[in-house]
């Protein structure tokens, strides 16, 4: 996309041309945002800390989907199952081998990446709806396996195992307010990596395959290996997110929202935020989490108004609101909130000529 710049903003060196944050005020703003988020556990209440922590690890998972679906154009209905794999890897390596978190999280990323590669294999032969079905199969098979194989390690049919709290430099991270900083660090790292992956050969070949896989092949991009790499990256980020979720909840198991609905929720977050845009995961996850809170408030209000139906009303508004908002976005703004944000920026830069 052509970047609109104010008059007088020139590049004088290649290094300057490659900068992500071009203006000093942008750097200050970014630093302020990160510091502001880092201060939340010191001043916020428990609810705010838990919610922001959940937003952060969900963003990591949605960033993975953004690489696969947004940049490469492959549909995945299995992201939540990959998060489950990551959670199990973090739990098992920490519990049985006593590895520190600096090792378990990267192991979770790599291990989940390999699982993602296996379920990405059908992408070599099929695409579109067929691929969605293959990943749907992953979404059913992985949780089933976790409930039925190696019950002594994976918790058996009750399917829940405890995750030991990580210890970093002698400090035990057993509060959400402490795990918060691990999530923040991971989110900062993945964001920097993903903003940059778009400017590498790999990122450009992702986009080439999405826009036209035949044309990409003619240009010398191997679509098969590119798709598999996209699956690998997406599953890696899902593994990281799953690891963070497991550490935050201090247990992992199929009953803790790793199902098909969670995968659909992640896809919906991506679409509402903006497919293929770096800001998409941030805007989408924040919107959906806000929407869920709204649904909870609506549910409890309705429950107090109609006490006879209270049990039906408390939880039902979440899928209702989510489905409605997802459909409205797809019909009226399929490019998501990030596109609106770009329009807003362009309007601001073009003033006073924009309307």
């Amino acid at each position, binding site marked *: 996309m052509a970047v609109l710049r104010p008059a007088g903003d020139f590049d004088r060196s290649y290094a300057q041309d490659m900068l992500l944050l071009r203006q000093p005020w942008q750097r200050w703003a970014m630093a302020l945002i990160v510091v502001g988020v880092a201060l939340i556990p010191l001043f916020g209440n428990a609810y705010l800390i838990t919610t922001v922590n959940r937003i952060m690890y969900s963003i990591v998972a949605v960033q993975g989907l953004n690489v696969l679906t947004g940049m490469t154009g492959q549909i995945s209905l299995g992201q939540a199952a990959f998060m489950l794999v990551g959670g199990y890897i973090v739990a098992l390596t920490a519990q049985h081998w006593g590895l520190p978190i600096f090792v378990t999280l990267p192991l979770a990323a790599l291990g989940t990446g390999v699982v993602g590669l296996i379920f990405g294999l059908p992408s070599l*032969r*099929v695409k579109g709806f067929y691929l*969605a079905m293959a990943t749907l199969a992953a979404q059913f098979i992985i949780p089933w396996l976790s409930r039925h194989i190696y019950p002594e390690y994976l918790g058996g049919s009750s399917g829940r195992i405890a995750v030991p709290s990580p210890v970093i430099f002698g400090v035990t991270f057993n509060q959400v307010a402490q795990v918060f900083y691990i999530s923040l660090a991971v989110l900062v790292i993945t964001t920097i990596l993903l903003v940059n992956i778009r400017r590498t050969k790999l990122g450009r070949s992702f986009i080439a395959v999405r826009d036209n896989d*035949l044309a990409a092949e003619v240009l010398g991009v191997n679509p098969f290996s590119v798709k598999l790499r996209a699956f690998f990256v997406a599953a890696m980020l899902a593994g990281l997110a799953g690891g963070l979720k497991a550490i935050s909840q201090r247990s992992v198991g199929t009953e803790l929202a790793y199902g098909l609905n969670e995968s659909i929720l992640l896809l*919906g977050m991506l679409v509402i935020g903006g497919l293929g845009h770096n800001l998409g995961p941030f805007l989408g996850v924040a919107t959906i989490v806000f929407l869920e809170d709204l649904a909870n408030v609506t549910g409890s209000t309705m429950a107090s108004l109609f006490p006879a139906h209270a049990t039906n009303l408390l939880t039902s508004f979440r*899928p209702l609101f989510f489905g409605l908002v997802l459909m409205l976005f797809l019909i009226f703004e399929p490019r998501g909130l990030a596109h609106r944000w770009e329009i807003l920026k362009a309007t601001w830069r073009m003033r006073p000529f924009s309307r």
Partner: protein
Amino acid sequence: MNWPLVPQQVMTGILNGGTIALIALGIVLIFKASEVYNFAHGHLVMLGAFLTWWFAGAEERGGEIFNLPLWAATLAAVATAILLGLAIERFILRPMTGQPVLAIILVTLGLAQFIEGGASILFGAQPKSNFPTPFSPSDVIRIPFPGAFNDTIILKQSLVASFLVAAVASALFILFFQYTKTGLAMRATAENHEVAQGVGIRVSRIFALSWAIAGTIATVGGVLLATVTGVSLNMATVVLVAFPAVLLGGLESFAGAIVGGLIVGLSQALVQASRNIEVRNSAEIVPYILLLIILIVRPEGLFGQKRIERI
């Protein structure tokens, strides 16, 4: 394998497969007419069952508005489902015409979530066991079969009846598609939208009609499932096995959907005849394992046309 159990499981599997095949037909119909992959079909099935349950006055709290016999309740539910199908086509999928596959899949997933929330508000999230089925679980047919367990095959009457209804409904549907003028118009639309429009078929009306028929089929399938298993929100996920059935048979083939449905039903029942407990427990994922195999070996399905763009 526990061989004496096999004849029993084969019969149960085929009978279960009949309902899956009927539900799969609805998915194929929508795909053929409008190239929409309807992930909300399972939720339409669930909603159809709930609507029938509600029209039959099975509400627990005594607040029932209707108290119809099962056949009338089914008809009322079908009428509601037809209206709903028309509304879905007009307000959700028509604005999406020409959008990429990803957006179409996502909009049906969003619709599925919406229906799930709506159904849970209207009818409650608890499973209902009081579906007004004409059969009790003890009504069974015993067929002597030497070599089977106790030398008899035991078939639940509800299962046999639902298979027969599914078979009749599928046959009626295929006859309609093959031998009526509307069916011919629908086939023409499936082949090519522009040419169909060119020879004077109202393509938008065909889309609406196919959603109305899909709503009908889903409701009938839901009622059949509910007579066997009862009504619950979980039905929508259980019915997702119709998708492996569709892909097994080939996305564009009605005969394939029926064969695929029977294969899925059979495989789910046959694993129950195993001696290994883990294999017996795998009934819920066997269709998906079959799906992965068919996607890798023969992506167009058993009866589908080789139209998939490879890469």
